């Protein structure tokens, strides 16, 4: 028996942390009729509509990966996180998280991950965060010495050491989020699921949270899956991006790959010796023309060809070539996925 246990221990080291196979979640949504008569009708005959929140999603996350989950509102990101953390059952499909079936909610499973939701509060409102941390220590049975050490490091890292004795309701949103994050990390989870961890925070607080996550990741090798609408978070943290839209997977790969794959044009910024000529329209879409400056959007594959054509005709003082902002590309990916979906 011992040998078998050891074998399990060894193999689990090499196994994926998260494995989702054809995860699907459909909700039955009650269709409310308009007006009083409609409401009365709803009392005896209810009309339901099937809504597919997540549609056969499959992916694997290896230990130590930091993965971003992108998609517009209502794409199914939160629903997927809820299935992976065991809050809801899928309609069909399978998942193994940390070698457990999440929705069986095994005690050992719950001790090894954390779910942080940017808009939900887990700390006790009327108590100092320190008391909530103590409660976590008991709930997760963290040894006192280790608890004090981790807590000291995390409060230092996030710069909130002086605030832990203040009632949570008196903290600012950013401070509260930092406390939430500390609470989520105290028990040293192997998997961290983050749903919009920086929502509503100012740039400084966002950066502090990002730094904390990055440092924590590099030191402890924790696996992270996060959703965010801030590309800044994604750029700062994640090497791999999963894009889902309308419940289905649209892209799975490195962040840079999104630009490669979906960024069809580049922004070429030109500075002429004299005034910018007015016949630039034939090279591409002119975004701006002001004095000696002109910005042109050019198809990715034709950038070098067009640049040399411009150089042949005009004297240039400066040239820069940029990728369009990631937000713009992502918006385009979402849009294309929507069109595909509608066409299908």
């Amino acid at each position, binding site marked *: 028996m011992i040998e078998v246990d050891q074998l399990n221990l060894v193999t689990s080291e090499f196994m994926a942390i998260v494995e989702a196979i054809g995860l699907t979640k459909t909700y039955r949504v009650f269709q409310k009729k308009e007006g009083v008569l409609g409401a009365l009708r709803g009392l005896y005959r209810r009309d339901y509509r099937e809504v597919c929140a997540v549609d056969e999603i499959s992916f694997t996350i290896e230990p130590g990966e930091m993965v971003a989950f992108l998609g517009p509102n209502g794409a199914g990101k939160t629903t997927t996180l809820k299935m992976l953390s065991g809050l809801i*059952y899928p309609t069909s499909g399978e998942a193994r998280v940390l070698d457990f079936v999440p929705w069986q909610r095994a005690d050992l499973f719950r001790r090894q991950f954390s779910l942080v939701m940017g808009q939900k509060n887990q700390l006790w409102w*009327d*108590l100092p965060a320190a*008391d*909530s941390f103590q409660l*976590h220590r008991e*709930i997760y049975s963290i040894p006192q010495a280790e608890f004090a050490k981790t*807590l*000291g490091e995390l409060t230092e890292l996030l710069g909130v050491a002086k605030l832990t004795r203040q009632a949570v309701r008196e903290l600012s949103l950013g401070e509260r989020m930092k406390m939430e994050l500390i609470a989520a990390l105290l028990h040293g989870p192997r998997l961290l699921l983050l749903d919009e961890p920086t929502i509503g925070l100012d740039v400084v607080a966002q950066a502090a949270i990002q730094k904390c996550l990055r440092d924590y990741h590099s030191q*402890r090798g924790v696996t992270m899956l996060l959703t965010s609408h801030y590309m800044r978070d994604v750029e700062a943290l994640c090497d791999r991006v999963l894009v889902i839209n309308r419940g289905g997977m649209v892209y799975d790969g490195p962040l840079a790959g999104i630009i490669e794959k979906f960024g069809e044009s580049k922004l070429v910024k030109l500075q002429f010796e004299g005034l910018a000529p007015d016949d630039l329209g034939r090279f591409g879409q002119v975004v701006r023309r002001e004095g000696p400056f002109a910005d042109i959007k050019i198809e990715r594959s034709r950038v070098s060809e067009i640049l040399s054509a411009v150089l042949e005709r005009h004297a240039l003082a400066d040239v820069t070539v940029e990728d369009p902002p990631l937000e713009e590309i992502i918006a385009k990916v979402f849009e294309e996925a929507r069109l595909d979906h509608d066409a299908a």
Partner: protein
Amino acid sequence: MTPPDGLAAPSAPAPPSAATLAVEPLPRHAPPRGPIATLKKHTKILRVSLSERMTYRSDFLLGTILRFLPLVTTILLWKSIYESSGKSELAGFRYREMIAYLLLTHISRMFSSMPGLAAGIARDIREGTLKRYLIQPVDMIAYLLSYRVAHKLAYITMSIIPYVALFGVCRGYFDGIPGPLTLAAYAVSLVLSFFVGFYFEASVGMVGFWFLEVTSLLYIVMTLNFFISGHMLPLDLLPSPWSTILKALPFQYMAYFPAVVFLRKITGWNLVLHLLLELTWAVVFMVLSRGLYRLGLKRYSAYGG
């Protein structure tokens, strides 16, 4: 109140630079086993809850004092009822006993009433805060029980002075203090009334899994309970089928039963039998609340979250 030990204490060695975290991977914490570990965990929950309750101590005191005010009108009301009826006894209660009974039901309710428990569970379900019980390795019902014990301990501690004063003023309504055996039975009946009350309200709160809005339902249940538990008047006073029916129901253990134990109206084997019945009801409601929670979670996990 003792502050949590060694928390964020300056004695904790500060890391040399902000970015230093322990390099070694964290050991996995085996879940603690055995009743002692569980007890320890819940003692902590209790302690934290206790300090939370103490945040509102002035509210406590004011609430307790205000609760006594209606008593004056109740005493005057019963006085005139007895005088106009011309009888010295109503349903086996003399005037002084009646007042003593009404005072004692306040003690019963101090143990068995669970303000906000059912509504809190329903709110947790509706607003999704229920999540934390599903994500963290902690059982919701056990957690709420610890919280409630803390709440009650705080409440009873805070109310001791006003209650001692009240019973001192009203001592004329009592025929002395009952013997140690009766007092012991009284204490047991009160503790059990806490469990009956807790698991009953917990079961009611679980209805929130099936209905989004439970405020009016809770209002009806609580108002009805005020009457059928005997908080308002002794159940013996009701006409015959009703008093028998209500005495067969579990609600009497939340107010009526402990009071009549103190007044020595139930004695001997009858007392033992009723204590056992009270225990049985506590277990029945415990099983019910657990079952409803399990069913509710199934539904919750399928539809929402």
